[in-house]
Each structure stands twice: as structure tokens, then as C-alpha cells.
């Protein structure tokens, strides 16, 4: 039934890499297939709309288990396709009513997809996160407290609070400047870069402040060079974490406003 099923789009690649990995499964455990049109190939699978329709998605996107399973399944397909050649990953939960609109997309945005695939060809995305080790507030506050015996507890509290805020602001400023510097160096080793929003400490699972959440598109042959440059930036209260190589998720945005 057409009404009950949608076509989930994972990625677009060049027709030259048009094979589909055997038995590749996508979201909801469905088999991935290809749609070829205008020299491009779309990797899709059929999804039930009672899970992937607009209303169900509003609910399930808030369900962490569902979101995690779907994100990993999507990523798994993109990774498998990326092994074959340049790929333009599509944003999570992009669902069409059928194959025809996907064909139309490949036809209408052909030039944009070709340009995006060219841009990422022979390149990989690397993620770099920079953390600042927090100054231990407990130790500092205890120290200040011991020197404040002659003033009233209220004044002492306010002074302590002001000092703590000043220290924090200053640390932030320094950390921000450091992050800019790191970003600039890494940028010089890449063909494109992008800064994602810093992750909440609750999400990153770390106490330290994240001051940089960058993505860098790097020529494959410069990957080692990039990693060495990163290693050279370590230390001085900054911890750097490298992730990747990723399929070029952060660098395949198509130009707004359709084909040119």
C-alpha cells in the first residue's frame, strides 16, 4: 500500500559507484536499494509511515533509544556507501512518499549534487573537540574563605561570588581565544571547515568545558599531516579529541534555491 509506506533517503552518490552492498540493511531493518537517475544514484529503503510519518516522528524523535537506533542505522548505510566512492549523506529522517519524488530530486538538483560530490571527492571529514580542564572551584573557594574571617558572612559570600565569576569569565575568554587559535591551525590543513555547536557536558559525558566542536574536510593524503598538527596543539590545559574519518556529513549542504 503506497499510503502506508515511505521511501527513506540515506545518501546520494555518482552513478559510477552505483552498486549496492549486498544485504545492506537500513532503518527499521529494511533492505537498502538504489534509485538511478540522471547519472546519480540514491540509496533508499522502504519505511512504514506509522513509524516514519510526520506525527509518529515527532514522538519518536524524543525517544532516545529509537533515535539512537535510527541514527546508527542511517550512519551504517552512509558508511557502507562511502566505501564505494564520494558520497553526499542526506540529513536524518528524510522521507519521501515514493520513488518518483526521489527521481525528481536527482533530476532537478543534479548540478548541485555533482558539485557537492566533486567537493568531497578524495577527502574525509575529521572531527576535533577541544576541552578545557575546569579549575577546581572547591579548592579555590575554601582558600578564599579562610582569608575572609574579619568580614561578615554576607560580604564574604558576595566577594567570593564576584571573584569566582571574574575567574570564570577570564577562563572562558582565554579558552575561547585558544579555541580560535586551534581552529585556525586545523583550518590551514583542510579544504573546508565548520564549527558545530559545543556539546552540553551532560551529552559529551565529560566535566570539562567544550570550547571547540569543529569539523574539517581534509584531503585523504593529508590525513596524517592533519593528525600531526593536532598532536602539536595538545597540552596547556586543553584536551583535544579527534573523531573520524567521517563521511562528509558537514560539507555536503546544497546551495539554497535549487539548481543553477
Amino acid at each position, binding site marked *: 500500500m503506497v499510503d502506508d509506506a515511505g521511501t527513506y533517503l540515506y545518501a546520494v552518490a555518482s552513478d559510477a559507484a552505483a552498486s549496492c552492498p549486498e544485504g545492506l540493511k537500513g532503518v527499521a531493518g529494511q533492505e537498502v536499494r538504489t534509485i538511478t537517475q540522471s547519472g546519480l544514484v540514491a540509496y533508499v529503503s522502504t519505511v512504514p509511515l506509522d513509524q516514519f*510519518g510526520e506525527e509518529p516522528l515527532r514522538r519518536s524523535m524524543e525517544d532516545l533509544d529509537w533515535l539512537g537506533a535510527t*541514527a546508527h542505522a542511517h*550512519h551504517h548505510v552512509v558508511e557502507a556507501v562511502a566505501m564505494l566512492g564520494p558520497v553526499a*549523506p542526506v540529513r536524518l529522517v528524510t*522521507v519521501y512518499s515514493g520513488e518518483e519524488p526521489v527521481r525528481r530530486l536527482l533530476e532537478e538538483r543534479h548540478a548541485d549534487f555533482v558539485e557537492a560530490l566533486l567537493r568531497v571527492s578524495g577527502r574525509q571529514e575529521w572531527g576535533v573537540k577541544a576541552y578545557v580542564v575546569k579549575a577546581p572551584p572547591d579548592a579555590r573557594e575554601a582558600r578564599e574563605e579562610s582569608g575572609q574571617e574579619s568580614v561578615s558572612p554576607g560580604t564574604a559570600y558576595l566577594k567570593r561570588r564576584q571573584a569566582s565569576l571574574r575567574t570564570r569569565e577570564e577562563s572562558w575568554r582565554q579558552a575561547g581565544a585558544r579555541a580560535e587559535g586551534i581552529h585556525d591551525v586545523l583550518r590551514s590543513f583542510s579544504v573546508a571547515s565548520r564549527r558545530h555547536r559545543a556539546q*552540553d557536558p551532560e551529552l*559529551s559525558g565529560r566535566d570539562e568545558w567544550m570550547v571547540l566542536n569543529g569539523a574539517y574536510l581534509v584531503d585523504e593524503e593529508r590525513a596524517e599531516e592533519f593528525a600531526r598538527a593536532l598532536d602539536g596543539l595538545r597540552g596547556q590545559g586543553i584536551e583535544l579529541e579527534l573523531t573520524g574519518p*567521517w563521511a562528509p556529513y558537514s560539507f555536503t549542504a*546544497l546551495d539554497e534555491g535549487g539548481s543553477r
Partner: protein
Amino acid sequence: MTHDQPRGAVLAAEGRLPAERVALVDLLDRLLAGGVVVSGDLVLSIADIDLVRISIRALIMSVRESDTFGGGDDELRK
């Protein structure tokens, strides 16, 4: 949690991480804020920003059920 050894070189040599070992939060940075965004003909039309906010809220909620909201809440309301 510290990575003193030159992790960059090690990772670069190892190649891709298996999909299931990729941290969800790193993945969502890319899957919700990156990738090709298409419009028209779609079954659903949740704005991009909504998706990001909804899922980040889901993540935060799941991690800190009973806790009060801190800095993360400001981020969400921007």
C-alpha cells in the same frame, strides 16, 4: 579520560570506527546539523531547527532525569 598519546596518528592509521562504536552525540551533530537538506515532496516537514532541539532535549532529559536544568537550557531557548 586523558589521551596523552598521539591519538590522531593512531586513529588515522586504524581507519573508520565501526558504526556502533560511534558516540551518539557526535553522530547527531552531523546527522541533524549536517547532510544534504532537501525540501519539497517530503512526507514530513519538521523544520531543521525543531529536529535539533527536540532530539537534544531528548538526550538531556534522558541523562539528567531528576536534575534541574543548568546551562544546557539556555542553549535550547536561543
